[in-house]
């Protein structure tokens, strides 16, 4: 039987505010337990929430960036349930009237086609604390530093049909929130995570199957694996005549499987109602205009511009606009190498990206700055060094030996373009390899490579390749 997979994602993006959504406690990551949980975050008796303006501004930015409706009036509601990481016994969230609704983003599929994924809503809410399970033999420890950190929960339509699409969508949102500067996107620290709603149905069916929700996926790889596991599991259940149970599941990365969550076994009745401690959030046209004016160039627009302005392929433009930092770096390299966009693209996507990956560092921390890379490319363009030597120079720059010119100078890498000097070297080689010269002249033209190799060896790679080729051909045929 042919099955169709239906996936919807609920992405939780921590907003990059300094203070919490309803209190003046710091949101900085990594503090000692509970040292950033103030009276409001702890839910002490008598405390009250006041909404952080920056969290609102960030939510609105996101709404505008996905062409969504930004509500002129939205309402905070309480989601009631008991759990130790939820100090008040309710989470302040938005329910019937979210701040953002009905937006969409485009993702690029493996076949190069573009697909639109609907964003049902994005609402503001507070994050919960963290449970520490391994510190005590008989107890779970609760750290409420994270409690009250602002979250934007971004809920997609069930528009995705494969784990690959889900990952592409998640990457798209990840890139977007980072472009907007509203979330640091750090998945290890949990700043950006998602729950995956997965169901399967027979191909051609119009009704959705029973879905499961897999919680707290904090890497693209886990999202893909968890969904694939869930899809196979559900198909197995259905094909063996069983029924999928609607439940909340947890992905175990070590075992690469999902399992039902014990703490969610009981059916929830969240008893949402408008939070009487908070008044309706009103957003007027002037505020929207001000936020609109602050929006940076977004990934899709940037990608189109890169293709048009720099003549890049869709793929290259996509890679170079995947993050704002990458795009900015690329454009700074172009600037520094007199507009040689193609060459800059090759180097940024090639050696530069490879080194970033290998040393697992951020663009901002890379030892080779855009102007340094641009300076190196200039030296390729003016024939001071060959592309091959440039790789050596790049390595040296990455290792902190200085800029391209200093390294070329110090290592004596300037290529030999003096035809007199090159001719003398070539004459020597011809004289000492009479057999090869004979064969070449007899028609075995492939041997040109042998002579180039000998010449490069003699010049330690510094011979100007074009010049060397031309001279060799002339002398050998002579």
């Amino acid at each position: 039987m042919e099955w169709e997979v239906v996936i919807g994602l609920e992405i939780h993006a921590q907003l990059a505010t300094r203070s919490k959504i309803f209190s003046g406690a710091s949101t900085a990551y990594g503090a000692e337990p509970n040292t950033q949980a103030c009276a409001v975050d702890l839910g002490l008796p008598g405390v009250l929430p006041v909404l952080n303006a920056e969290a609102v501004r960030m939510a609105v930015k996101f709404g505008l960036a996905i062409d969504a409706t930004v509500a002129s009036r939205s309402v905070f509601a309480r989601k009631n349930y008991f759990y130790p990481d939820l100090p008040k016994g309710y989470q302040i969230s938005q329910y019937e009237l979210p701040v953002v609704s009905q937006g969409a983003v485009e993702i690029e599929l493996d076949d190069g086609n573009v697909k639109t994924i609907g964003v049902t809503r994005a609402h503001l809410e507070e994050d919960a604390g963290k449970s520490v399970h391994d510190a005590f033999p008989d107890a779970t420890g609760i750290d409420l530093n994270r409690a009250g950190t602002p979250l934007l929960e971004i809920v997609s339509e069930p528009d995705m049909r494969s784990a690959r699409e889900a990952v592409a969508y998640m990457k798209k949102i990840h890139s977007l929130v980072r472009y907007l500067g509203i979330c640091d996107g750090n998945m290890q620290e949990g700043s950006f995570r998602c729950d995956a709603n997965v169901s399967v149905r027979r191909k051609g069916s119009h009704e959705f199957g029973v879905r499961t929700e897999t919680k707290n996926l904090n890497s693209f790889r886990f999202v893909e694996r968890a969904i694939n596991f869930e899809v196979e599991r559900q198909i197995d259940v259905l094909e063996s005549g069983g029924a999928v149970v609607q439940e909340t599941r947890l992905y175990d990365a070590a075992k690469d499987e999902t399992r039902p969550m014990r703490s969610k076994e009981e059916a929830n009745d969240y008893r949402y109602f408008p939070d009487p401690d908070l008044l309706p959030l009103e957003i007027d046209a002037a505020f929207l205009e001000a936020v609109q004016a602050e929006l940076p160039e977004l990934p899709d627009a940037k990608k189109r511009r890169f293709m048009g302005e720099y003549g890049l392929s869709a793929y290259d433009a996509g890679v170079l606009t995947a993050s704002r930092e990458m795009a900015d770096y690329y454009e700074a390299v172009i600037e520094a190498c007199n507009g040689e966009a193609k060459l800059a693209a090759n180097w940024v996507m090639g050696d530069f990206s490879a080194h970033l990956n290998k040393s697992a560092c951020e663009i901002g921390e890379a030892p080779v700055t855009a102007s340094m890379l641009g300076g190196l490319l200039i030296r390729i363009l003016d024939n001071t060094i060959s592309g091959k030597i440039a790789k050596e120079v790049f390595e040296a720059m990455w290792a902190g030996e200085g800029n391209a010119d200093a390294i070329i100078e110090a290592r004596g890498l300037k290529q030999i373009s003096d035809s007199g000097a090159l001719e003398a070297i070539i004459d020597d080689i011809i004289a000492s390899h009479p057999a090869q010269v004979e064969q070449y002249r007899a028609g075995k033209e492939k041997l040109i490579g042998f002579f180039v190799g000998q010449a490069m060896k003699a010049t330690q790679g510094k011979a100007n390749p074009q010049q060397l080729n031309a001279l060799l051909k002339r002398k050998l045929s002579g």
Partner: protein
Amino acid sequence: MPLGSDEVKRIAHLARLALPPDTVDAYARDLSSILTFVEQLEAVDTQGIQPMAHPQESKQRLRPDVVTESDQSARFQSLAPRAEMGLYLVPKVIE
């Protein structure tokens, strides 16, 4: 609507309230009489009436994004029935 003792137990669990077993019937009786009393609202015509969540027709004030709180964890945790190593402790939770 009269509530049975099973329904009372269900609600008590939802609200995480242990009720001594010999009090459940009394709660069922009291809650039923309260619910019967409030059910007179059913007869009121509220067609087209907007629900009123707040006594003021006003909008939420916004707070500037500034860190104003400093660490008071030692003082706060002195109030806790069980806290160790800076953490509040609860019986082992299995997720």
